[in-house]
């Protein structure tokens, strides 16, 4: 009985090894072929085109515009426009690095907006510019601090407001 069990176990283990190879190998090879053909198709693209293709032209366009406005050492306040779990603020911070960022909070909740107002009003040494990361894939927006504060003060906590700002390109504070 024990010998039969051992035999069964051995063949089951061998069958699972074979099955693992048989199920994953075709997928791995197919995946490689797809990625290789894609890589050959986009060969010769520069990094700007590649980023625009991957993240969207409007997103990368907005990042480039902010980079032109903010010097490489110039700090900024980063505000989360959407769900803080979405990672949007991380991606914007990465794109704008090496500019140092101060995380100023989230616009998505009334309490967050209140905290944001207090922070920007209280800290006179806060950076001159505010960048809003609205959500994954949505282009970030740049505001001057004073105009951002003004816009923020106009917002009603109970509604889903859209206020016109005086930021570059006439962007608005978009609370999602």
């Amino acid at each position, binding site marked *: 009985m024990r010998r039969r069990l051992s035999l069964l176990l051995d063949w089951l283990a061998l069958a699972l090894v074979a099955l693992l190879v048989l199920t994953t*190998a075709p997928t791995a090879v197919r995946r*490689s072929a797809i990625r*290789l053909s894609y890589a050959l198709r986009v060969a010769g693209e520069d*990094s700007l085109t590649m980023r625009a293709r*991957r993240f969207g032209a409007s997103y990368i366009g907005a990042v480039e515009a902010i980079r032109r406005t903010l010097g490489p050492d110039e700090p900024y306040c980063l505000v989360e426009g959407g769900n803080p779990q979405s*990672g949007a603020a991380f991606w914007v911070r990465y794109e704008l*690095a*090496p500019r140092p960022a101060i995380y100023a909070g989230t616009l998505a909740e009334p309490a967050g907006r209140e905290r944001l107002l207090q922070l920007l009003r209280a800290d006179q040494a806060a950076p001159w510019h505010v960048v809003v990361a609205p959500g994954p894939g949505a282009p970030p927006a740049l505001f001057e601090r004073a105009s951002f504060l003004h816009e923020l003060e106009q917002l009603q906590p109970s509604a889903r407001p859209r206020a016109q700002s005086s930021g570059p390109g006439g962007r608005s504070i978009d609370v999602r």
Partner: protein
Amino acid sequence: MSVELATGLGGVALFAAPGWALSGCFPALRRLSPLRRFAYAYPLGVVAVAGSLYALSHLCGVPLRPPAVWTICGLPILAGAAAWVVRKRPPPPASQGKARWGVRRWVRRSGGPLPIACAVLAAAAGLGVVAEAVSSPVTDWDGRMTWCVQARYLRHAGTVDAGVLRDRRWWLSNPRYPLLLPVAQVAVLEAFVADQDSHSFRLLYVAFFPALLLLIYDGARRSAGRSAAATGALLAALIPFFSYGDGGAVSTYSDMPLACFFGGGVLLLLGRTPRGAQAATGIAAGLLLAGAVLAKEEGSLLAIFALLLGGFLGAGRQRSVAQRGEPASPRRQPPVRSLAAAAAAAVPVGLALLLFASWRAGVPSRQDVNYLGLLVDGRWWPGVLTHIGESLPALLHGMYNWQHWSLFWWMAPLLLLAGRRALRRPLHRRLLAAAAGPPLVAVAAYALYSRPVFLAVVSWERFLLQAAVPLLIVLAAALRDVAARRLVPVLTRAPGEARS
């Protein structure tokens, strides 16, 4: 993409060449075939180049700029070339007539058709990872949140003590994580004067994938033979998480490098050391484990664990054998040799720990979890009992995710059970103990952290990846045991032989 590819390949050579030269200093590595030597040479090169830059920048204020990068890369290459010229080389063996070359001979020398088929399949799987890395910018979560953003700040400041890291005011994620891999990124970008948005450094991470597969092959080949070793490496190449997962070869996480540093260090410490080369092998293992310390937060614990496992426990086991009066096996290493290798390995590990502590002292914590503080304060009670149970479903969900692991976690326990005779060898038992290291660190973290389920969801599979080298070597040995019992008799049975 062609520029990115050229820069990326140059970046890989930037570490592989000094690593190759450095590996020539260690008899245990020098005698390996070129491919197996690459498995150790590449991670060694990353430790030597990025680790030196890390230390020189922090301790001496050397700027992270092209002159420093090229000098640090050039020195080991020059030293290795000089050593190669000076070293007394044995005369080539007298030729036995004209050497014949043919496909059959090549296949036989390579261990038969199975290892070749495995190598071809693994290469085909790996090509996709390379293609993805050269054709797309960084898109992974931790890469953009932690490692790559850190690299940008370091590159701009030209130092590992960038003001952004040292000033509490600036918003960073995990600023106290060790910086070996971000420094390596900076080295690639600076050496080739690449654009800020260049993603050429992605190949630096991808190159750890073949290193991982070759480490598995090298370790398993010594104890399980070529066919089982090649199958073990192929399994690693085909597990989707190892290639495309968050933390896998295609990402810019530090887990794949850590798996190579830890796995390579453990293999050198546990493997048989050439007579008279204990200290040299120990230093090679120590350098790899120093890489583990400087690559990731948990690397320090894993390096200390490997030292304990490799040296001191090995010596203890040998002593107990001697006390029982059993005859010493000629294949067993005397305890003094295990201790000598571990003591030599402890030197680079100790230096790396000191460097990390010194650098970290200047970086204020932001939102980092202080596990040691939680432990000291006693705030882990009673969570230590309940957290494991809470996170268990998340752990199982990760392991049995078909998209990430396919059948691997169904197969692995069964294969271990079926091939349990392989565990009679002390080397395999100690490798299995080494494989338990990263998951144990993870479980300890879940026990202490206030949100264990969240932490388990985002990190468990990466801890499993860190254990890949010792685990897959043991699985390869188990496979060999089962195959020798069941497959070899069937495959070698004469065509007309009746079934008994």
